[in-house]
């Protein structure tokens, strides 16, 4: 069933939100795996090669710095922070979308 027109397609939204929940649910596995292999992105690698790493500064650390929650382990922290961020993003996007509605 397509979600065209002016009606909200509840069936599709339920399936889509289920997909989002699945992504969040598996995120702790990726966080643990990334920690195990010493995950590093090309940008961090370039910073290490050029000696730029020490220049990084933090102006706003955020409520959930590095997708973690103080006092919680990697898996639980990632799960909580990821769920919060996904719901927040969904809400902000819905709000922006409403502001652009026809």
């Amino acid at each position, binding site marked *: 069933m397509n979600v065209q027109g002016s009606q*909200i397609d509840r069936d599709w939204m339920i399936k889509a939100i289920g997909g989002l929940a699945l992504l969040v649910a598996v995120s702790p596995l990726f966080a643990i795996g990334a920690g195990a292999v010493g995950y590093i992105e*090309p940008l961090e690698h370039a910073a290490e090669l050029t000696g*730029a790493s020490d220049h990084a500064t933090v102006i706003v650390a955020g409520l959930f710095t*590095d*997708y973690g929650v103080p006092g919680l382990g990697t898996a639980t922290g990632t799960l909580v922070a*990821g769920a919060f961020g996904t719901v*927040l993003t969904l809400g902000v*996007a819905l709000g922006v979308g409403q502001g652009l509605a026809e």
Partner: protein
Amino acid sequence: MHTPDGFLHPWMVGALLVVSSLVVGTCLHRLRGTLSTARIQLFAIVTAGIFAAQLLNWPLPTPVSAHFVGGALAAIVLGPRLGIVSVSIVLAIQAFVFGDGGVLALGANVFNMAIVETLGGYAIYQLLAGYHRPTAIVAAGWGSITLAALAAGIELGLSPAFGYELVTTVVVMGGGHALLGVGEGLLTLLGVWLLETTGSPASDANRQGAQA
């Protein structure tokens, strides 16, 4: 690929904040009054999906690794303007709530991942979709993240924190993401396939987005 604060030259930080603000502002202005309820639903789910997919840092047995960015996916299913807005929302939330990417460097991150990646991915997709759509989607994902990484590499290489080592930053960023970008391409194809097979109006949204 999220640039933190302190890495870029101050003039570049300011210039990219202005450029990105103008581009996102123009997109919002042009999109005002155009979104149907269905498009708002799709926009919200795709934006939240990009955030959730970016949580997944792929633990590859390689010297460097990466996560999905989603600029090409956003452009293909939402159109370029709404795609830029979608990825920009993700980047702003990541910077202010999760400390992922600097708040002053947000202009640079929006420029690289929301503007260059989205427009680059959309251009590649439009160029190739008439020949073989799945290949076009994979190429858009791969090419878009490589272009975004090259943009980031140039910005970093022109900044004093990186000793103006432009060749190093461009090779590491562009080369690294050119290899890892195969994953971005395959995940972009998976994302488009999932949206279309679960009944979302991805193709219709794309057509509307291209016109909006």
